[in-house]
């Protein structure tokens, strides 16, 4: 076991897969010579050379279109969209082309590709560089959606994404890049669609993703001081969605709180809540509480951004409301 940052885990995961499979290539803006604007791809150009690690123009549609065309003809591209907010400039390629092609072609075309992107708030970058857009992706049939919360999961889920025969949107949380965690020796590869219960608890189930996982764990500690034992589930992927794990926990606790960083409307928490309201209604002993960023663009100033994003305190309050 070694300690590694989330940032370095990205490079390590990509390197693991590029070394394993020659058809894996990486391209995006500043990913090569500069090692990425978040320094998450440092060393890859040196290791794999300029035909496999390619700096591109500022042309997100061209980048993702190239990834798609390469994937349909035998390669396994990893493309980077620098900030997830920029998915909006290439959403057509993602939502209309990449997501729909296997289906429209009646299964003729496979698109084994990964699109990595820096997602989420907390960096005081303002409304156009801080969004959490995992719900945009989840709303589009045909995409898999992954968002790790630890360095170990970065490697394991990135490897799984690269090996997956379907297109995967891989959301790296910008505010987690500097965090550290233990990472095992040797190859790591997970299965997509397995949530993890990162804290056991009998009183209430808190489901979280990415940066919200450590915050939910903090909230759980706060609640424990009041004698409330919260189970915390790290979803890890939204598609496939591990409802089995979530449902088992909700059946046990009778209470559900979802913690989303995205703005409120139509977030994944709503999807989870609606599944529970349809399938597990009679297992519930209290309201399903969604803790989210309010339905606003993110403000830039530190004080305002901190007030907008779900904090451990707001999560704990949500749990109390669920139990009230």
């Amino acid at each position: 076991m070694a300690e590694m940052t989330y940032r370095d885990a990205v490079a390590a995961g990509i390197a693991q897969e590029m070394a394993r499979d020659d058809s894996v290539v990486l391209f995006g803006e500043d990913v090569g010579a500069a090692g990425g604007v978040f320094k998450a791809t440092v060393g890859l150009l040196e290791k794999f050379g300029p035909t496999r690690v390619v700096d591109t123009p500022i042309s997100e549609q061209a980048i993702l279109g190239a990834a798609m065309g390469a994937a349909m003809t035998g390669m396994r591209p990893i493309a980077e969209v620098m900030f997830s907010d920029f998915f909006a400039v290439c959403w057509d390629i993602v939502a209309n082309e990449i997501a729909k092609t296997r289906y429209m072609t009646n299964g003729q075309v496979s698109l084994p590709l990964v699109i990595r992107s820096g997602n989420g708030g907390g960096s005081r970058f303002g409304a156009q560089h801080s969004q959490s857009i995992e719900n945009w992706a989840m709303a589009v049939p045909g995409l898999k959606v992954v968002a790790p919360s630890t360095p170990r999961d970065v490697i394991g889920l990135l490897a799984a994404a690269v090996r997956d025969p379907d297109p995967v949107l891989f959301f790296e949380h910008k505010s987690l890049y500097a965090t550290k965690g233990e990472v095992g020796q040797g190859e790591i590869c997970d299965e997509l669609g397995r949530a993890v219960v990162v804290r056991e608890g009998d009183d209430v189930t808190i489901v979280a993703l990415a940066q919200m996982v450590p915050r939910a764990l903090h909230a759980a500690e706060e609640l424990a001081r009041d004698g409330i034992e919260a189970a915390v589930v790290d979803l890890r992927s939204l598609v496939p969605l591990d409802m089995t794990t979530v449902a088992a926990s909700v059946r046990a606790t009778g209470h559900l709180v979802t913690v989303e960083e995205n703005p409120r409307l139509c977030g994944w928490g709503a999807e989870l809540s609606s599944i529970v309201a349809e399938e597990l209604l009679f297992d519930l002993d209290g309201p399903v509480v969604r803790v989210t960023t309010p339905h606003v663009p993110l403000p830039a100033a530190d004080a305002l951004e901190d007030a907008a994003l779900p904090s451990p305190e707001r999560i704990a309050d949500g749990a109390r409301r669920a139990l009230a």
Partner: protein
Amino acid sequence: MSPPRAPAPDEAPSGSLDPGGSRPPARATRLALYTRMLEMRGFEKRAYDLFLSGLVKGTSHLGLGQEAIAAAFGTAMREDDYTFATYRGHNHALARGVPMTPVMGELMGRACGLMAGKGGSMHLTSVEHHMMGSYAIIGAHLTIANGAAWSAKARGSGQVAVCFFGDGTTNIGAFHEALNFAAVYELPVVFVCENNLWMEYTPIASVTAVARPAADRASAYGLEPVVLDGNDPDVMHAAAVAALGRARSGAGPSLLEALTYRHGGHSRADPGKYRSDEELSYWLGRDPVPAYRARLVAEGVEEAEIAAIEQQVAAAVDEATEAAKASGPPSLDLVEKDVFADGGASWRR
């Protein structure tokens, strides 16, 4: 806020340029070109009839009048070269040897359809024939064709990607990104703009800052401007050979602008009444199919040989029509099939 201006018909041939030299293709190639054009013409006329009689549902965009371009490339391409086309892509699919029955079946939404009805007329794809899809949202497929070319280059396969699109497509952002990208990485891709002077119901000249929507943009990507008579199969064949050769030799992308005209409306039952009679009759007079027939005859091909081809094609169209009609609706369980590689649509466990 300038008013729409339809280009005068006699603007069309001016500025044409024949990069392939003037040596005519071999006799077998010419017969292949004619056969391909006839297949397209016969197929699409039938598709139009089936649309009018309610058997083709949804929409369909015919390339009647534009056959020479697809036929020329279909004839010049290597079997494993990739084609990327638009919603107006029946011709381009047929040009790669995709059989008529599944294409007709797809238009009719039948089980025998190329994608069992899941794609529809605008999304013809046959990976087996390296027909990598027709795409219905303007612009995207230029970037996707780059990816296939990138992969061909990385794999050293010698394949070329050919990407067809319309004049109107030159004003969308993805066009610009794709052309620059292809040029920067010297990708083996040939971009073919089929300039039929119209977008849906608006003339390209009224919304474009330059006279040649593709060729006048070539220099922005360090490429040569090329304007071709898109209704002349020989000219188009020579240009295709030249551009494919250039790409295969590692010299990078080409951008060709082929002037042509769609005889019918944009889609479905659009009668295309927004075009002047003068313009329409000018272009009907330049119909590539009878003109090429006349050229073949003038250059010594026997009437009988031509007639035999014509009969054979007509029979093939009839056969495809009957086969598609005989096919039932697709199985309803296809609705939730093949969203993901596991064959299903499940997003949860």
